[in-house]
């Protein structure tokens, strides 16, 4: 067996020289002082390969268009075994790669390993750092959830503000006007078609330069005999890679990466934030307002990148021991403190979500948490007598399917088509078409999409006055100015917590004579009947704070 392996590998080596090449690579001489501090570059390359691998796997089940991308990612997460793990590896791998690339750069900086003749190696490294950040920026959009959408809106707006180049950059990123299909296609193209080969090429160049000049020796290394790269240093690199991989794997298994709601350009309550590694940039931007904004958005980041490029030309002294490089340590320390301070400030000033009480409106536990539209859906559900044929979570044996397990798997569009032409969507269905307007069917679908076996009875317990109030709220389109449970606009005040702020008499009079109660308000008067008024106020006062 061994002889066969040897024959084959000898044959291959004579034809291709592969074994000799690998040998030459592994039996490279490295300075005596080499050791654990030089493992970060290898980890970075390893993580890049993990990203390429998991990225390709995700692409096998991903539709790169807005909307569909969200659905396909949800399919990966919920329908495919191991999908959540693969996405977790890709998500956390990205964060980890940024950390590791930074550590690698920090080590080279602190040791002064960028000095002559290794300036080019350093500069290629800076470009690789920028590419790594570019992956983060472009990949952020690809899930097409609210986080992705709003984060990218901010990013493209910043690019648009660059002096001179702004409009061109904005056009290049497809962000002119609004973030939409073009931006998405550009980001996807960059993320999977342009950046990976560029990164691969630069990594090869980077490693070639490292090999050409040899690993940077420390002071005093000239006097000591060289070591071999293999196996001792390879062992150290491998241990470091292994530890990094275990951390990554555990993160991917344990820390669930959220997929938020589908991107909603009309969602005025969303607070956009970039991923953690861009928070410091985001915070710098806030320190400069008005005409000075350009300093935070372009000048400072530009200068920082320029400074990084120039490091080897500024510091040209001889090699000294890493512990004696006080200036380098101070610079790195200051940068770390500044970065941490900005990031913490950004985190601290991120306002809590619109509602101070943490209620997960995406999976309501009680009817009070439904949006007015969904509440109105309960009204239509009752008027159309849906429960005559459908069970709603309580078991039993009715002719139609249980709505708590079925409807939540379908999309709103599917449900609405089904309401209009039941048999077209579920052939053989004996359900009669529902004779309601599109807006009303939307309400009904919105309610059904929120139904789960757990909340079915709580949602159905919604009292009539609240349902009638919500129907009235929808019919009068109150959501065009007001927000309830995080849904609607903020032209007028949000209505959660109204009971705390006003009395019922005040609200009633406000409906009839808005200008009397709050001068200069643009709210029109509403002449509700007495029962309508009671339902409306009862509903608004029942909302959670």
């Amino acid at each position, binding site marked *: 067996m061994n002889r066969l392996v040897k024959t084959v590998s000898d044959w291959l080596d004579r034809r291709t020289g592969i074994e000799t090449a690998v040998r030459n690579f592994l039996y490279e001489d490295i300075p005596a002082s080499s050791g654990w501090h030089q493992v970060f570059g290898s980890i970075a390359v390893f993580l890049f390969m993990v990203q390429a691998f998991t990225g390709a796997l995700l692409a096998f089940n991903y539709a790169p268009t807005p909307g569909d991308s969200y659905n396909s990612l949800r399919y990966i997460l919920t329908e495919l075994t*191991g999908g959540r793990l693969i996405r977790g590896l890709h998500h956390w791998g990205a964060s980890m790669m940024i950390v590791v690339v930074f550590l690698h750069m920090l080590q080279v900086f602190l040791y002064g390993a960028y000095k002559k003749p290794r300036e080019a190696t350093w500069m290629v490294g800076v470009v690789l750092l920028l590419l790594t950040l570019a992956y983060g920026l472009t990949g952020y959009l690809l899930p097409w959830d609210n986080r992705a959408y709003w984060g990218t809106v901010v990013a493209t707006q910043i690019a648009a503000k660059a002096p001179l180049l702004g409009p061109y950059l904005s056009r290049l990123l497809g962000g002119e006007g609004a973030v939409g299909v073009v931006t998405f296609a550009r980001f996807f193209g960059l993320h999977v078609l342009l950046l990976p080969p560029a990164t691969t090429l630069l990594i090869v160049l980077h490693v070639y330069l490292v090999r050409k000049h040899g690993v940077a020796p420390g002071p005093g290394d000239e006097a000591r005999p060289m070591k071999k790269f293999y196996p001792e240093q390879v062992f150290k690199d*491998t241990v470091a890679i292994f530890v990094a991989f275990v951390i990554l794997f555990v993160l991917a298994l344990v820390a669930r990466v959220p997929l938020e709601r589908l991107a909603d350009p009309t969602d005025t309550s969303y607070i956009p934030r970039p991923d953690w590694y861009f928070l410091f940039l985001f915070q710098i931007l806030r320190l400069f307002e008005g005409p000075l904004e350009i300093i935070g958005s372009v000048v400072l980041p530009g200068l920082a990148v320029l400074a990084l490029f120039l490091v080897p030309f500024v510091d040209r002294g001889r090699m000294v021991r890493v512990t004696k490089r006080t200036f380098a340590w101070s610079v790195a320390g200051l940068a770390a403190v500044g970065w941490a301070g900005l990031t913490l400030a950004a985190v601290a000033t991120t306002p809590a979500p619109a509602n101070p009480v943490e209620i997960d409106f995406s999976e309501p536990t009680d009817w009070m948490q439904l949006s007015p539209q969904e509440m109105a859906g309960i009204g239509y559900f009752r008027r159309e007598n849906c429960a005559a044929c459908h069970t709603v979570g309580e078991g039993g044996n009715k002719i139609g399917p249980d709505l708590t397990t079925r409807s939540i798997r379908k999309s709103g569009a599917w449900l609405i088509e089904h309401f209009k032409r039941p048999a077209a969507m579920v052939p053989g269905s004996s359900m009669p078409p529902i004779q309601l307007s599109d807006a009303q069917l939307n309400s009904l679908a919105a309610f059904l999409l929120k139904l789960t076996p757990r909340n079915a009875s709580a949602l159905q317990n919604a009292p009539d006055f609240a349902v009638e109030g919500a129907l009235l709220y929808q019919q009068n389109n109150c959501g065009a100015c007001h927000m309830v449970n995080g849904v609607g606009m903020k032209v007028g005040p949000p209505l959660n917590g109204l009971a705390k702020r006003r009395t019922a008499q005040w609200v009633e009079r406000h409906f009839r004579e808005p200008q009397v109660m709050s001068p200069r308000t643009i709210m029109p008067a509403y002449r509700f009947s007495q029962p309508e008024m009671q339902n409306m106020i009862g509903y608004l006062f029942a909302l959670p704070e």
Partner: protein
Amino acid sequence: MVFRTAEPESPQLTTRRSFYVRAINAMWAAITAALAAPALIYLLLPPKLRKESEWVEAGDISKLQPNVPTELVFRKNRIDGWRVISEKTTTWAVKLGGNEVVAFGPQCTHLGCAYHWEAEKSQFICPCHTSIFSIDGKVVSGPAPRPLDRFETKIENNKLLLGALHETVEPGE
């Protein structure tokens, strides 16, 4: 890639060296396995969708003449990855002796071409490789490996309802 340990130096060095080599190979094997296993599971296991055997209405059987296969066109929902699509599909339905209605899958069992009924010859003929099937779906000649596939059928109020498509096993051979 597995590398053999190089020329021995001293016994002590050799043991440390072979420890390194073995550790390196073991760690890379573990990493490869931890990446390959989820990848294979992710790619090879079917999606976790619940199987819904929905009955699809294919048409009215009162129009079917005995022993005259008729092509029925109907719409059917199919789960396509992350979408549910409604697509047009067909079946060759035939009322065989008595009141038994058989609905054949629309594809030849050889390589999936669409076959059709030739009334003059009273045979199903596939235009691709000239597989020929009799009215009850049995292979008469040609390369087809098995009889035509059949839908599960159910009749309610003269409407033909179709269920899953099954391969027909050649009876008693």
